[in-house]
């Protein structure tokens, strides 16, 4: 019984939390917080259970499928399902939102609204990962926009309005492209007479579309939808040159929101590419894979260089996300088994490490109220535990073996090298620069003499440590035992790769 609707539960439990929060009087802060914690906590527990319980790692395809008609006029169904691709991301989402609640413990300004929006955000994110109906996917996708807009816009930093609207406009532009593709795909699949949104069915149909030589304005149908979808998702990832919303949004967002943004929202674009973009336009993907790989390489190198040039700690971390998401694109574009696994694992590992980095920035910002890297120094003296955790996070981010980042980056690069050796070699420059700016940051924040004004800075407290330790633990765990996750993903990704290979023949 529970397993029948497990996915719906995971998706909509936060919504229950949101309703409960809205019912609590706004001056009862404690109740609001604990309700949020409980809602996300139970969701996390359920996703853990999903992981260890009913999910069968041996199956590559969709599991625990739920389906019910929703809007029959358009043949829209409420279809949910999980496979190896979505499982780790759902878990990550649940974890990050759970942690975000605790990271938000200090928020007092309109706390009720804040936590309610946070819950709504989780609904959208989990829904996107679990939806198997394109329309449903789109709806969940858009549900995330509003909460994010307000979470940045109300609780953000000095330029929050600008950042919020920029985020909103960029992502909405992407969504609109996706919407256009959605309409086109639906009509192509039969329109009012027999069209479908079922992603699995659409994947089957995509083979015929790929074989269809007719063109519109000189481009095949699959090419059109490929680019529409790609740009839509690329904005979210974000891929150069659509990335400029990200630093602004990150810098202005409050810490927990940055954590969510970097930890899970960026993954949505990537997930969308693997779930929808590439399978629905396999031939176009095959044709343009090199361009994508080039974009990925640009992301890696460019992001790292720009990060090096930042003086704002958070901005630097934000650009590091740009750089790290480039690995995904590179690995996915290569579409080798290793590359694909690496790229997908990168989503998870970057989720943990970047979440940690933003928590790190948040801690120091809470204490010193600025983020200017050149104005820190010597904090290791007063905050040894903080420094220790930071080092774990930063080295995980720079891809140190034994920590999670290395596994995914190494797999991505090795997998991609088989297809795009030159690009991979260029990308290694990004690895170098990543190390450079992170070490430089460590040095400027923690090492050297401690300025007088920071003499009384306290070390991290239990709550902050509680937020960071799960991520640190995951960084180490995945770094040492990547098979924990890869085993779950492998069959699905192999299936995915084979499906594409069946279309493009190779």
């Amino acid at each position, binding site marked *: 019984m529970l397993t029948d609707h497990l996915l719906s539960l995971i998706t909509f439990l936060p919504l229950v939390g949101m309703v409960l929060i809205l019912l609590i009087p706004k001056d009862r802060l404690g109740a609001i917080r604990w309700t949020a914690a409980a809602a996300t906590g139970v969701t996390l527990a359920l996703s853990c259970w999903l992981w260890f319980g009913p999910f069968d790692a*041996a199956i590559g395809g969709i599991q625990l499928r739920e389906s019910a008609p929703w809007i029959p006029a358009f043949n829209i169904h409420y279809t949910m399902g999980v496979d190896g691709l979505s499982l780790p991301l759902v878990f990550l989402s649940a974890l990050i939102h759970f942690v975000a609640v605790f990271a938000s413990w200090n928020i007092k300004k309109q706390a009720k609204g804040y936590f309610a929006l946070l819950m709504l955000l989780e609904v959208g994110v989990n829904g996107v990962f679990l939806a198997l109906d394109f329309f449903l996917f789109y709806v969940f996708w858009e549900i995330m926009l509003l909460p994010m807009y307000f979470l940045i816009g109300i609780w953000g930093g000095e330029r929050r309005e600008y950042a919020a609207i920029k985020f909103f406009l*960029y992502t909405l532009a992407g969504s609109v492209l996706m919407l256009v593709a959605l309409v086109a795909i639906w009509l192509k699949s039969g329109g009012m007479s027999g069209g479908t949104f079922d992603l699995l069915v659409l994947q089957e149909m995509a083979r015929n579309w790929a074989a269809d030589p007719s063109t519109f304005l000189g481009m095949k149908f699959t090419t059109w939808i490929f680019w529409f979808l790609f740009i839509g998702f690329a904005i979210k990832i974000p891929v*150069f*040159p*659509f*990335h*400029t919303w990200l*630093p602004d949004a990150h810098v202005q967002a409050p810490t927990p929101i940055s954590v969510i943004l970097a930890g899970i929202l960026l993954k949505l674009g990537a997930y969308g590419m693997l779930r929808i973009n590439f399978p629905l336009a396999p031939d176009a993907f095959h044709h343009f894979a090199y361009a994508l790989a080039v974009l990925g390489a640009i992301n890696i190198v*460019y992001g790292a*260089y*720009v*990060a*090096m*040039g*930042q003086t704002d700690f958070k901005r630097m971390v934000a650009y590091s996300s740009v750089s790290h998401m480039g690995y995904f694109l590179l690995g996915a574009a290569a579409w*080798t*088994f*290793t590359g694909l*696994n690496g790229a997908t694992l990168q989503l998870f590992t970057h989720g943990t490490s970047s979440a940690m980095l933003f928590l790190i920035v948040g801690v120091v910002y809470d204490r010193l109220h600025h983020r200017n890297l050149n104005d820190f120094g*010597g904090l*290791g*003296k007063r905050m040894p535990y903080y420094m220790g955790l930071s*080092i774990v996070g930063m080295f995980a981010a720079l891809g*140190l*073996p*034994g920590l999670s980042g*290395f*596994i995914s980056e*190494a*797999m991505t*690069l*090795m*997998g991609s*090298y*088989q297809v795009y*050796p030159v690009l*991979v*070699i260029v990308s*290694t420059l990004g*690895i*170098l*620069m990543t*190390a*450079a*700016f992170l*070490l*430089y940051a460590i*040095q400027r924040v*923690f*090492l*050297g*003499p*401690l300025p007088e004004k920071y003499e009384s800075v306290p070390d991290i407290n239990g709550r902050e440590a509680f937020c960071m330790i799960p991520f640190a633990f995951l960084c180490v765990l995945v770094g040492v035992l*990547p*098979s924990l996750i*890869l*085993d779950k993903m*492998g*069959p699905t990704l*192999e299936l995915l790769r084979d499906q594409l290979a069946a279309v493009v023949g190779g």
Partner: protein
Amino acid sequence: MLASLLQHGAGTAGHAAVAAGAAAEAFGPATAGWLLAVPLLPLAAWVVQILVGRWLPRQGDWLPTGAMGAAAVIAIWHFVKVLALHDPEFDLAAAVELPRWKFFFSDPSLTTGLAGFSAGILYDNVSAALLAMVALVSFLVHLFSVGYMQGDSRYNVFFSNLALFTFAMLALVISDNLLFFFVFWEIMGLCSYLLIGHLAADRKEPKMSAAWASMKAFMTTRIGDICLFIGMMMMWKAFGTLSFRELYAAVEAHVAGHGGDWSPWLTGAGIMMFLGAVGKSAQFPLHVWLPDAMEGPTPVSAMIHAATMVAAGVYLTARIYLLLSPTAQLVVACVGGFTALFAATIGITQFDIKKVLAWSTISQLGYMICAIGAGGVAAGLFHMLTHAFFKACLFLGSGSVIHGCHHEQDMRKMGGLRKKMPITYLAMLVSTLAISGVPLFAGYYSKDTIIAKALERGLAEGGLIWALPFWLLVVAAAITSFYMFRLIFMTFHGRPRAHCSEHAHESPWTMTVPLIVLGTLAVLGGKFWLLDPLGAFSAGGEWFTELVHDPVHFVDHETAHHAHLTAMGWSLAAAGGGIFLSCLFYLWRRLDPARVAAALGACYRLVYDKYRFDELYLATVVRGSLVVSHLAAWLDRTFVDGLVNAVGRIMAGLGTASAATDRVVVDGAVNFVGEATAAAGQRLRRLQTGRIQQYAYFTFAGAVVLAAVVLYRVF
């Protein structure tokens, strides 16, 4: 060349069956467990130490030290067994069933890519010797640190990092594949970063220079690491495996398949992988980090220079030797030889006692690398081993000196410590004799073999360029003995030249015991003529070269013998010359070094400034990267952001633009008729003028345009 390779392979196969039986007898099924315990003991110690070390008695220093001690005992015990076996082709995997770790995927049905990857243990003669050496030296360094690091504000952290460092090196030594090799290799990079920068986070007086040095070390070695990774990827792409054994076979087959020709990309891959060693072993041109790494506490220096970091590079070069094409080998040999000489020249000019030792390390590493490049894998590794003993001894000795001199490192302020610190003096003297290549001391044997191997290869290949390594090494040998004795004389002889050295005192037992042990090994490490008078483990005491054979022999036995004699002559002459010159300058004071330096002028300054490589890199690589990154950041802020936003602006601007068009068009029309200039006037800014009749005009006009478009387009 190829024929010899094949021959070698055939010999191995024939021999293996016999040897495996003996090995299986010697090593029981629990061997893998024991071997894994060697790295895992320090790892466990690290975990405990990092988590709760602070609250343990004595801040837990006994924990890693004890673990290391146990690991050393295990490693040496197994090494002794290997020695007793006395089988040059010994490989544990052939004898005993070893566990394999399916790292990426545990699902066997996934057949592609890294899914098939698994990691195992590689325990052969080389690993065995190295494992024992690393474990022993590391243990001694731990022990030394107990004394040396007393009072450090992050005592517990230091020990945990040290334990992790050791773990990485030990694990690296027994890794049977490039990927895991790389993993531990990088973890060592992290530890070196943490340890070199140990004082940068000191609670009392953090040293910013240590921070810079640690970053420099990490970044410089990382350049090499990335090259290594690229090399790995090239190999993996071509052969689909990263296991050393399988790679040897695959490359052999590949070369055989191409009629004995090495594909250019193989040369490239080899050089790439070697560049990893260049970074880790501080070879030219990535040598710049090592001298700065002296910012770390002295035990760390000892660790890095003797047992871990730099040794890993040499070990890597040895491991991939069979993957290197002849061209790549030449590159390796030349880089090594050049580094040996280049670093030695700088060593002459330095005054910081640890800096001198650092440059000497680089130089000695050059020897090892050069040896491997020249085909003397055994020689290179042998030197690595002996060097580990005497260099660890030298470093710990210098640490002892520094400790005794209240953390003074400038040799110009020392002098006359011979009497105040006799144990230290003796240990260091012995080690210096060893490094200088004085016969009967450990270094002599290994160094001698290296020079001989370089000569052999030069003879075998012919040509000028292959002759280069030999001469580079010989000159370097002379310089080495010169500056090493300069160090001894300046530090221990003469009169105290400063306050600090006057009040020097001998170090506590935790520091002297390691010195004694290492000093002993510096004497005995080369030949077992004292340890093993009966020849139980080796015939003639040449234990290492008997145990580890070069995979390829380039010349016949006769030539080799002659070459050996020639090389011995040259190296003895070089060592003697160097010592003599040193005595002239610093012991007998017949020559004034200051005047010579002044006479050399700019040349001297250049060498003193380490050929200004730091400045060069700072100006090009570092500044260049920074400039590019700032440029990129600026570009991103202004241009890329602007570009995409411009679309939005155009959108918003359309409103204004259409209004502007309208201003022109509507105004123009109205003016053309000559009516209502005043009415239109300035207030006609936008279409929404608020005037109902103008709305009517716009409506008519719009309707007419629409109708016209439709009528004339369709009909």
